[in-house]
Each structure stands twice: as structure tokens, then as C-alpha cells.
């Protein structure tokens, strides 16, 4: 119960802070909508797809490849960095809050945002005629694993590399945008040259995209996406473990008044 109460408290606080500032929420809403519309229109035109089909294909990549990346990875880096900058982390260190609850709180808060983005992207795509027929549980699982991966990476970056808020943008721009392109968030991986495709297969965003597109847009089952799913699962576990180790390393240095 202790972990539950603490997790809820941290998640509520993060969401409340985001709500108060609103700016991030507006960006995180506008960004996937714009990317979805652009991706959908480009696909419809260049791949000769009907509008509904184009948006059906574009929605999953837009969601896990672009929307969740900025909200869940960028958002969790920003949360940790802002706590370090405001020094409120110190206040949390002197409280009984456990590190597990802190991580889970950030995960839950960003999951809530991710779910909101999912509903937004799905609703717009559906409004434009897209139909999502895959296994809903599998879709939710892929989305949650993607969020978990992003939050884990966010913890690593936020605790180890980003010291100030300005660093967040630099990190996301330097590493994030190339990874997104290579993951097929903006251009389908089927257009990649062979060598780039081999490289893309090492990119977790590629596996998130492929897994979700195949299940949600094409109606594939678990057996059809096992390689993508396990890559994503292992990556998520590694990132959570990495995030946890990084957090503990930060504690050793900063756990002082």
C-alpha cells in the first residue's frame, strides 16, 4: 500500500504541474496531430492509398514513434531535471518516498499522457476513416512497453546526462530525431535502403512501430510480431534496469542537503 500511495502521489503531482503549466500538454497534443495529418496525407498521395487506409497505417507510427517519444522520454527527462534544478529532489530524499515509487509515479504520469495521446491519434485517424482491428490487449501492451522503454531511457538521460533544462532539448534533438527517422516514425521503413534497414533493426523505435502497425493496422496476431515484441520487451527491461542503476548512482552523489 505504501508504494501505491506514493506512486499515486508522485503521478498526481506531475500531472498537476503539467496541467498548471499547460504549455507541454498543448505541444504534446498538437505534435502528434500534425505528424499524423502530414504522414497520412503523404502516404495517401505517394503510396496511392485511400485516405482511410493511409491514416490507418500512419497512426501507429505517429503514436509510438513520435508522440510517445517526446512526451514520455522528453517528459521524464524534463521531470527529473526540473526536480534537480528546483532541488525538490532533496526534499523527496528526506521524506520516506522510495525510489521505486518515484520511478513508478513518473511512469504512471507519462502513461496517462501517452494514453491521452493514443486516444487523440486514434480518434482523429478513426474520424478520417481508419479502422483498427487488432487485439486490443496486445495493442495496449505494446504501447505500455513503449512508454516503459521511453521512461527508462528518460531516467538514464535525466540522471546522468542532462543537468539543466536546456540540456533536455539538446539531447532530444541530438539523439532523438535521428532515431525517430531511423525508426520509421516519419518515413515508412519499407522505403529505407537495405543497409539503413539493417541499422534500423537495432533501433527499438523501429520495433515499436512495426509491432504496433502490424497489430493495429494490419490485424496481425502475437505470433506474427514475436521478434519485434521480444526485442521491445528486452529493451524495456534493460532500460528500466539502466534507469534504476542511474537513479541510484545519482542518489550517491546528490543525496545530501
Amino acid at each position, binding site marked *: 500500500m*505504501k508504494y501505491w500511495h506514493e506512486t499515486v*502521489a508522485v503521478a*498526481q*503531482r506531475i500531472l498537476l504541474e503539467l496541467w*498548471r503549466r499547460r504549455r507541454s500538454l498543448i505541444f504534446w497534443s498538437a505534435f502528434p496531430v500534425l505528424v499524423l495529418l502530414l504522414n497520412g496525407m503523404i502516404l495517401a498521395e505517394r503510396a496511392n492509398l485511400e485516405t482511410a487506409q493511409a491514416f490507418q497505417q500512419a497512426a501507429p507510427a505517429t503514436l509510438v514513434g513520435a508522440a510517445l517519444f517526446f512526451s514520455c522520454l522528453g517528459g521524464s527527462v524534463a521531470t527529473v531535471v526540473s526536480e534537480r534544478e528546483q*532541488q*525538490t529532489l532533496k526534499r523527496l530524499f528526506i521524506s*520516506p518516498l522510495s525510489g521505486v515509487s518515484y520511478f513508478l509515479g513518473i511512469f504512471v504520469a507519462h502513461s496517462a499522457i501517452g494514453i491521452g495521446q493514443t486516444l487523440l491519434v486514434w480518434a482523429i485517424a478513426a474520424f478520417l476513416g481508419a479502422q483498427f482491428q487488432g487485439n486490443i490487449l496486445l495493442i495496449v501492451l505494446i504501447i505500455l512497453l513503449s512508454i516503459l522503454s521511453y521512461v527508462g531511457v528518460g531516467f538514464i538521460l535525466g540522471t546522468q546526462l542532462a543537468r539543466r533544462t536546456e540540456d533536455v532539448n539538446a539531447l532530444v534533438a541530438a539523439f532523438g530525431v535521428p532515431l525517430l527517422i531511423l525508426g520509421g516514425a516519419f518515413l515508412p521503413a519499407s522505403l529505407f535502403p537495405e543497409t539503413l534497414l539493417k541499422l534500423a533493426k537495432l533501433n527499438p523505435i523501429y520495433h515499436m512501430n512495426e509491432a504496433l502497425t502490424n497489430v493495429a493496422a494490419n490485424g496481425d496476431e502475437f505470433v506474427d510480431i514475436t521478434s519485434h515484441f521480444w526485442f521491445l520487451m528486452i529493451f524495456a527491461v534493460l532500460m528500466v534496469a539502466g534507469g534504476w542503476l542511474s537513479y541510484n548512482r545519482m542518489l550517491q552523489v546528490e*543525496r545530501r*542537503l
Partner: protein
Amino acid sequence: MLRIEGLKKVYGQRSVLQGLSLHIPPRQIYGLLGPNGAGKTTTINILCNLLNADGGNVLIHNQPASDATKALIGVAPQENLIYKSLTCEENLNFFAQIYGLSKRQRQVQVQSCLAAVGLADRAQSPAETLSGGMQRRLSMAIALVHQPKLVVLDEPTTGLDIEARYEIWELIRHLQNQGMTILLTTHLLDEAERLCQRIGILKQGRIVAEGSLPELRRLIPAQEILTIQTPDEEKAIDRAQTLGFPHRRYGSDLAFWLPKALELKEIIAHFDGIPLDSISRQPVRLEHIYVEITQRNADEG
């Protein structure tokens, strides 16, 4: 309430705490003074279980300091560590949740803490819109929200204007009246003088003097401190020596210890023939004791 015995902490080759011992009974305000680097913040870190001691014991409410005792302590750190975009009520509510208070307890405690620190009418104001003094009071309210047994106030009035200081002092007295035990660290000696029942002077990781203000005053064999301004200080010092008045410098001020209270005309008569620009007398203050103790220990060292 708080008992520290033989506390030691070493950073590399540097011994920061060298057998620190102190005891604070319940409902007392204890002032821990000392120059920068004396070990005050290290002591608080150990109390809060943020650092492990290299020796000695810390007992809080008869329990060794550990994660379990975190809930017994309320700490208001030097900086205002608050969530600026949240309202006062939301800040308190968050920390109350972290400390495991039920919804009903939270409702009561949040309102009661806001009232205690005089922020009841600003409950819905975002913390970033509060003045520096109000933010400090909010920070103190956060330290109190879980009803701790021991409140640690780390330089609570540093950086505040005099009005805000008065408010914080009033609040600290109020907390004591509510039955709380308070450990106060400060560089402001008049603050310690006004508030603390007992004072410990920390120097190089150990308590070098401790007691109530009257007890500490006995460490200086003077009834009053005479401060003068004269263009001929050498002559004034020579005259004072013949009279048996030890002299000290407090910053640039030249002062003499008067072994007994003298009338002003007697003092002026003693310094007859020496041009005096100004002359003032005051009782022995904590400032004089502090300088004497820390200086004496430095000389001995």
C-alpha cells in the same frame, strides 16, 4: 527526543565530525551554531539518514536514525524546496500523501499547517506567486505536515528581510508552544539568542561549548562590553590594560570587557585624556561568546 553520542564522519582524509555529542529534551529549541564547514549540515544529513556516520549513535525518539525514523523528523532546508507551480495546498497535500496520511488526516493537517504558518488565506495561491518570506513559511509547513516529533530548521531566516524574520521567529515560538522539539542551525546569533533554550557551538566537528545563554555568559569574565571609537587606539588599549579591562576586536570594533557594570561618567573618567569619537556599552551577547569560543579553540588548535 534527540540524543547524539560520539558522532563521527570522515570524508577522505578530512574528519568533519569528531565525536559530536548532544542531547535535546522534548519541547526545547536547541541552537546549533558554528562557522561554515563546522559540521552542521553533515549532522543534519546523518539525522535524516541521507549519510551514514562512521561512528557514534543517533537516537531519535529512542530509535536509531534509519529510513524508519524519517517520518519522525520534519526538515525545513536552507532553500525553499517547494513545487513552484503548485498551490500551497497542493504542495502540502503532496507531501502529506508521501508521508502516508489518509485523506481525512490530510484534509485536517493541510488546513491546520497552513493556518499555523499564516498562509490559510493563500491556500489556493501558486507557490511562485508568494513572497520570499511566505515561501519560507510554506517550506516550514511542509516540514510540519506529518506532525513530526523533531523539527530541524536549517538556517530558517537566511536571506529574508527583517519583517519576514520576525514572522518566522514567531512561528518557531508557536511550534514550541505546540509541543515540538526543534533543532535550529543558524549563523544569525541574535536569532539563536532570541529563540533557543540551549545552544551548542560546533567547531571542527565537535561541540566546544554548550548551555543556556546565562550559562554561556559565564564563559566570559565580563559584566558588560564597552565599545569605543578613538583615533588613538594604542593609548586606549594601554589605559585599559592598567585598569584590568581585557580588550578584543569584534570585526573593526575595539571593545573592552568590563568586569563589573560601571556608570558612564566613571568610564569616561577612566579614559580621560584620550579622544573618544563614540562610546557604547552593552551586555555580553552571544556574538561575544561565540567569537571568544571559536577564536580560543582556533588558538588552542
